[in-house]
């Protein structure tokens, strides 16, 4: 699946987008998997209460299942307007 990062999540991880092969069943499992990879991921995901997640461009919860999902995005709370 495609994993996208925005705002300071993107800056901490250092890339806007990557392709991830995973067997994670939920967003939370994917976060745990990425966090184990490298420090920059662990730093970005240190406090998930400060993060939001979208699955296929719809806001979702961290315990949402990933089956069938093609695009996951992580970002901080929105500040538009």
């Amino acid at each position, binding site marked *: 699946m495609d994993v*996208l990062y*925005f*705002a*300071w999540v*993107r800056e901490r991880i250092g890339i806007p987008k990557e392709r991830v092969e995973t067997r994670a069943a939920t967003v939370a499992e994917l976060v745990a998997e990425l966090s184990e990879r490298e420090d920059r991921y662990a730093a970005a995901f240190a406090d998930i209460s400060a993060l939001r997640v*979208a699955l296929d*461009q*719809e*806001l979702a919860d961290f315990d949402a299942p990933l089956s069938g999902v093609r695009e996951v*995005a992580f*970002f*901080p*709370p*929105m*500040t*538009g*307007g």
Partner: protein
Amino acid sequence: MRIAVQEEQFDLGAEANSFARGNVAHGAIVTFTGVVRDLATGDLDVMEIEHYPGMTERALTKIAQEAQKRWSLGDVLVIHRHGRLEPGERIMMVATAAPHRKDAFEAAEFLMDYLKSRAPFWKKEITRSGAEWVAARDEDENALGRW
């Protein structure tokens, strides 16, 4: 309904006039415009607005459709810019038309409250002393409780 996500500047007056012309069957028109504040400190050089192409348009369309479901509205307009903006530039606007002013006002406030916290935009302020992502405010999240 018109939803525009764009880098270019927009002309508030031209948009307001064109929106009003398309809504002569509705007595009440409300517009909200957000401006990059030219702070008293003169500290802000540039505001950068990042967004999530694709999701942004979906989220704004969904919010506008929800407003049309909840209120008796004529038309709805949402324009939001991204990219680099200077102090004094207009960031975004919404406009609503309705037979009654209460509907036009409430729908515009609803659009703004949801747009603030549910549309994927992120602001970064670049000042002389550095760059900083604007933090979400609790009161913006709490504003959703009204609806």
